[in-house]
């Protein structure tokens, strides 16, 4: 049962007022419990020092430090809640707004003093304001310009050229006998496999779909020699690597947002948020049997952007 207490002001309260007593009904017991909690806290903090000193496992550091802080905190909160002045106390709220005369005085100062200044010296004010304004605009351009190059055409091309050898991540050229039907490998144009641009932009997924020439779309008759087809590995949604190949369904799946591309019909997105097919890289197999590219991709790879048609 709570005792009924009216909020009182803290100021001028006699020292024996019940509002200044703790809320605990058995203060000695509460004090003992709190003391125990703080003692445990102190011991654990000391244990933290010891664990740190002997370089014990990380979890022991966290357990001792966390437990120590926790039990000290519990003791302190309990002290405040049960043993200190229980209140409730009341304090007046003073209106935030000033008196009307003071507001008027401020407005008068702004208008009369400031206004007179601007009116009489309009040219000076205009020049200072104009100069700073122009500086603000002008300063933005060099600042932005030094942050990075302009995009220009870089988003439209990769490093695949006519005759580029397809190599895997270790730099080994892919030979026509390397992949069994149903296998995939990530390839790069030779020389870029260790560069960040090669990794980020040129990455291409090479799939062997059959042993005969594979045509994914009309107009791509020669692009899939001996069943090898290659698609950009950059998802057309947000540029994640389309890294999961579902062999039975012949689907490439992007693990980020689950777009699925059917590799047999030009990587048209069958499901998910990707808006466009993965661009296909035209391939040929040279006289020695190495897989090479006929040209660069015919369209920009990766996610959409304004300048892309």
């Amino acid at each position, binding site marked *: 049962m709570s005792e009924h207490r009216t909020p009182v002001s803290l100021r001028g309260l006699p020292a024996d007022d019940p509002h200044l007593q703790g809320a605990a009904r058995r203060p000695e017991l509460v004090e003992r419990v709190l003391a125990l909690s703080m003692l445990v806290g102190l011991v654990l903090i000391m244990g933290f020092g010891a664990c740190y000193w002997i370089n014990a496992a990380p979890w022991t550091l966290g357990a001792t430090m966390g437990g120590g802080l926790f039990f000290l*905190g519990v003791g302190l909160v309990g002290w405040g809640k049960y043993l200190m002045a229980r209140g409730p106390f009341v304090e007046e709220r003073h209106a935030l707004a000033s008196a009307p005369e003071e507001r008027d005085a401020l407005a008068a100062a702004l208008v009369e003093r400031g206004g007179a200044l601007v009116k009489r010296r309009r040219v000076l004010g205009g020049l200072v304001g104009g100069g700073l304004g122009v500086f603000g605009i002008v300063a933005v351009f060099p600042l932005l310009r030094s942050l990075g190059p302009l995009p220009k055409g870089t988003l439209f091309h990769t490093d695949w050229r006519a005759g580029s050898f397809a190599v895997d991540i270790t730099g080994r050229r892919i030979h026509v006998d390397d992949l069994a039907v149903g296998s995939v490998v990530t390839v790069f144009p030779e020389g870029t496999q260790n560069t*960040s641009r090669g990794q980020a*932009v040129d990455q291409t997924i090479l799939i062997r779909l059959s042993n005969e020439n594979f045509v994914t779309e009309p107009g791509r008759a020669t692009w899939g020699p001996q069943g090898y087809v290659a698609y950009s590995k950059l998802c057309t949604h947000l540029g994640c690597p389309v890294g999961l190949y579902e062999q039975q369904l012949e689907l490439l799946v992007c693990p980020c*947002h689950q777009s699925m591309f059917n590799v047999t019909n030009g990587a048209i997105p069958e499901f998910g948020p990707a808006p466009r097919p993965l661009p296909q890289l035209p391939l040929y197999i040279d006289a020695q049997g190495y897989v090479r590219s006929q040209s660069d991709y015919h369209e920009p790879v990766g996610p*959409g952007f304004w300048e892309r048609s």
Partner: protein
Amino acid sequence: MSGVTSTPRARRRAHGRYGRVSQVVTEIDERLGVARGGRTFLDKIFPDHWSFMLGEIVLYSFVVLLVTGVFLSLYYVPSSTVVTYHGSYLPLDGMPMSQAYASTVNLSFAVRAGLLMRQMHHWAADIFIGSMVVHMARVFFTGAFRKPRELNWTIGVTLLTLAIVNGFLGYSLPDDLVSGTGIRIAYSILLSIPVIGTYLAFWVFGGNFPGTVILERFFILHVLVVPLVMIGLVGAHLALLVRQKHTQFPGEGRREDNVVGSPMFPVFMAKTTGFLLIVAGVIALLGAFAQINPIWQFGPYEASRISYAVQPDWYMGFLDGALRIFPSWSFHSFGHTIPFEVTIPAVVLPGLLFGVAYAWPALERRVTKDNAIHHLLDRPSDRPRRTAAGAAVLALLAMLFVASSTDVIANFFHVSLNTVLLVMRVLVLISPFVAYPIAYRIAKEMHAWHGAGQRKTPNVVTRTDEGEYRAEPAPAFADDAEEPLAPTPVPDFIEEPPPPPPSRGTRAIDR
């Protein structure tokens, strides 16, 4: 006489009744004039309510973030330069990786308490933003943002935005496989903005993705620029709180023109300092026992690699979910592309959400024409429409968050991914329209409920001599009966005046 004042003790006493303390106070006050203001500060009254503690969790996890963050910054190397790892974590031995990743693995395994600090930092960040959202919900549902506190609401929304941005920046710094994919997605989102997108992306990344400067830039933003702004805004947030005084729930003796609660010194100080220790302690225990972001298992970032179940930290979940479920509506025409499938969920949606959050106090004032000063809080049931609107937004966010796990859900329940996606699309679309009327109805019912806000009285069961049992409600509690605690009437501009329930809003605060 002069012999007496020359002893040190007498000199101290000469300053006032309280010896050395009086002396120190005098010395400071003669120079800075702090006595009156200092006393007012010590006497300052803080209202007590469990929900006012939520903001303290935010503040104290921020403190933990700063302390552990300084520790981490001593060992982290913000560089994408590729090095070969030869450290104490053998599974990665000999692998090429960025210096950023190598230094993060190193500070986790080779630096004493490094792993603990890293895990505490990550946990503190998740708790920081989580408690911020809950604190914001409390402020929203109780109407604490109303005049005169609109500015502090604005600062709070800005802090939430900055916290999410800084969380993402920090999450990206280890340069592991998962966070690197997150950076890649962020680049593509920038790229998707019409007209200026490519320029923006190139300026932020210093060229085409991945460039060579992004980790360095993220680092300086994460440890200097954003925290500096946040510290300033946290200071302003607290200064406004002190200046305007805390709001309070209606109750006995609590009026618009007073504050009822515990004094700053020593009660509030003891409780809040203790609470700081508890928050820090819980975060340390989480750091010790709950593994978070084990980047050594993900491996270093390589742009052509990816892993399954790629998900961001929880506070980015709603964006990831929106990106997953939005249909592939790309716009191609006039020689230009607008990737709506990215722009709308990742740019327009968060812009809209935060825009509404910023504008809410003004919007509500416009609807209610309520221009009065409010220091007494609403119970959520007092304002069914506001409560329902908040519930609708929370339901939408919750569904978007769930949608960020479509692949995991499909795997776990062995259902087709397509089904999960379609279901999530429907759920996201209908969730606000389901949540709104439900919350509205509940609020209305609670509001109209007889004895809302009053303590229940027990039933007394008596047995008559004939063996008949009878249950009768006991009389109301003495302190309830003594003074009906009607809240100071707040003009209710939103709702029609409620039917006159006998004791609407009466409540006793038990302390």
